[in-house]
């Protein structure tokens, strides 16, 4: 019986505790960005502490982020004040459920970004927040293996393959690293780098003869790629451990390597192919859901995030670059300096072929990525004939484009209506 009274005591005690834990009105910042613990901590301590009200910064994975948002929208009342996410996250949401933000008077200095932020409507559905891109990085030990006459800031894919082959031969193990793991961002390499560099397109040229060449070349590179790459998702880890010497990844997924051992690594632009040096930006934005409990605080926070000083602090916290014009100081973290120089060299290259983020796909963005990932897995990992795989996947890609009616984006030539797969 004493046990039972203990039980009862415990239960009533718990009930008491539950009732006391509540009521706290911070501005809730619901984000898919700056998730790694260190970045989240820096967002809270350095970036958001300057705002007038207390901000509760909550980074989430995409699944819970979207589910919670949808639940609040369906229930018609919410606690989320400000949303922070990638362009791709926002394009999967009904623009009606986001508050138009034109009256805030803040926007990105790039008109391309502002157009993307309208999500196909006439009004700003989100405000561009910060940007990044994908670059290459290498261990300095790999530099002596560079092919003769190759300039690391103006490499071609052929030179990259030769370089990786030299390192493979010299060290006895394949040292090219590619983020092909479950959380790796491999699809962006195909969409924004390989395809634009070889075919000057992404959708139209998906199954073109040039695409076959591109996959053949990537196959050659794969010969010198660490076979564990199918487990790699954050190339900074393999750079630091020495499992990979030459890598491709998102700037913020390389940052730790540069910050921990700035003298051991170099950052450099992505290589160029026959149709130029393809590269793709990453764009994150801020939005206010229609259910935000305190609209004024939410809008004030969005404006605060776009202020030049906040943008600089955000850069230091996340390695994501500002979207407004800001004078960069000299005392930036090593990762920002390294990647900043590489990005400048990449976008300023005479053969630069910048692409855009996929747009107009709505909630089919994931399926779109899947097409490229499946193509990679079938051609490179399962070694199926390239032409046959491309023909197969072409049908899926066509179906997605027709269903969403998404027009072509750069570097594909503009289309009337849905972007055709030629």
């Amino acid at each position, binding site marked *: 019986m004493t046990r039972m009274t203990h039980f009862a005591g415990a239960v009533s005690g*718990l009930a008491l505790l539950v009732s006391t*834990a509540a009521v706290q009105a911070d501005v809730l910042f619901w984000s898919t960005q700056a998730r790694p613990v260190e970045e989240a901590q820096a967002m809270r301590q350095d970036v958001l502490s300057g705002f007038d009200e207390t901000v509760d910064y909550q980074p989430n*994975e995409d699944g*819970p982020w979207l*589910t*919670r948002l949808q639940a609040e929208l369906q*229930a018609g009342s919410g606690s989320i004040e400000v949303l922070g996410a990638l362009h791709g996250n926002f394009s999967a949401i009904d623009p009606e459920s986001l508050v138009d933000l034109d009256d805030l008077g803040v926007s990105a200095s790039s008109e391309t970004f502002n157009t993307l932020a309208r999500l196909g409507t006439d009004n700003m559905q989100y405000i561009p927040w910060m940007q990044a891109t994908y670059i290459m990085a290498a261990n300095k030990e790999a530099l002596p293996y560079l092919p003769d006459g190759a300039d690391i800031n103006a490499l071609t894919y052929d030179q990259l393959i030769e370089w990786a082959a030299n390192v493979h031969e010299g060290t006895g193990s394949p040292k090219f690293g590619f983020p092909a793991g479950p959380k790796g961002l491999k699809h962006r390499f195909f969409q924004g780098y390989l395809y634009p560099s070889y075919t000057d397109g992404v959708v139209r040229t998906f199954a073109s003869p040039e695409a076959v060449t591109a996959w053949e070349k990537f196959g050659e590179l794969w010969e010198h790629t660490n076979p564990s790459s199918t487990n790699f998702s954050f190339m900074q880890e393999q750079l630091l*451990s020495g499992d990979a010497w030459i890598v491709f990844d998102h700037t913020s997924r390389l940052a730790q390597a540069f910050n921990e051992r700035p003298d051991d690594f170099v950052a450099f632009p992505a290589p160029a192919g026959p149709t130029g040096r393809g590269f793709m930006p990453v764009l994150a934005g801020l939005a206010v859901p229609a259910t935000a409990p305190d609209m004024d605080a939410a809008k004030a926070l969005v404006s605060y995030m776009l202020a030049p000083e906040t943008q600089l602090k955000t850069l230091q916290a996340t390695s994501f670059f500002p979207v407004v014009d800001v004078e960069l100081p000299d005392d930036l973290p090593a990762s920002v300096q390294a990647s900043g120089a590489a990005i400048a060299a990449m976008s300023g290259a005479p053969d630069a072929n910048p692409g855009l983020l996929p747009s107009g796909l709505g909630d089919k963005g994931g399926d779109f990525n899947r097409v490229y990932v499946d193509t990679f897995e079938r051609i490179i990992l399962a070694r199926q004939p390239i032409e046959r795989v491309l023909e197969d996947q072409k049908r899926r890609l066509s179906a997605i484009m027709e269903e969403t009616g998404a027009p072509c984006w750069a570097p594909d030539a503009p289309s009337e209506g849905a972007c055709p797969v030629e």
Partner: protein
Amino acid sequence: MTDAVADLPADTGASRKAGQFLYGASVVLLCAWVIVPLYFLLLNTLSSPEEVNSFPKSFLPHFDLGSLTFFANFQGILRALWNSVLVAAMTMVMSIVIGAPAGYALSRFEFRGKEAFRLLILLTRAFPLPLLALPLAVLFIRTGLDDTAFGLALVHTTLAIPFAVLITFSLFSGIPIELEEAAWTLGCTRFTAFTKVVLPLILPGITASAIFAFVISWNEVFAAAVLTIENRTLPAFLLQTLGEAPLHLKFAGGFILVVPALIFIFAVRKYLFAMWGIANR
């Protein structure tokens, strides 16, 4: 023939030795199975970032507390830990309070649809949480259960109940009804017979299902991430941000997630062992 007979004692000696060796090896292997990952977790938690990335590892850590200090200063971590304990405790209590009587009924009474019920109770585990989370969250927001430890504990209890019911069912079935009947003849009511005779016998089993409930609640991330905002549990608070963190922080964070669960299991271990007849209370 005679040779073979003469060989026999030597043979059994050898095979007993082999058997002992196999037994010992299995024990070592099973222990290593559990301890080695925990050891590496501890080692890497107490190492500096450079050491975490280097190989081979030294056997003893250098007691670099950098990674742990980072978490000690991490905003909201204590609160999240407290919420986790709270939710796990409520889940434990509720799943036992609901699950044990169901297990008792299943083992002692005959009723229509009993077999179907036993099967159906497993179905609560058949639907993936990401599928259920959206309607649940909408419902919780409308009813005011949203963002409370109690609301989350309800969801975790649903997940834990199949285990509680099935474990207690098999335990009750293992206790002869004659014991209870004897107690009735000696003046016990149905209830006192249960509390005085049956309950002490199945306490280890109750503990086991309580541990199950605790672990299920402790490990659950998706519902916790969607259904709580300010009252986040530790996994919802940490796990999502750990996936992309630098390696040394992953280890330290993993360590922080594991330790409270280890402490809990250590605290209740004697009840568990009692179930297997190793220790007597």
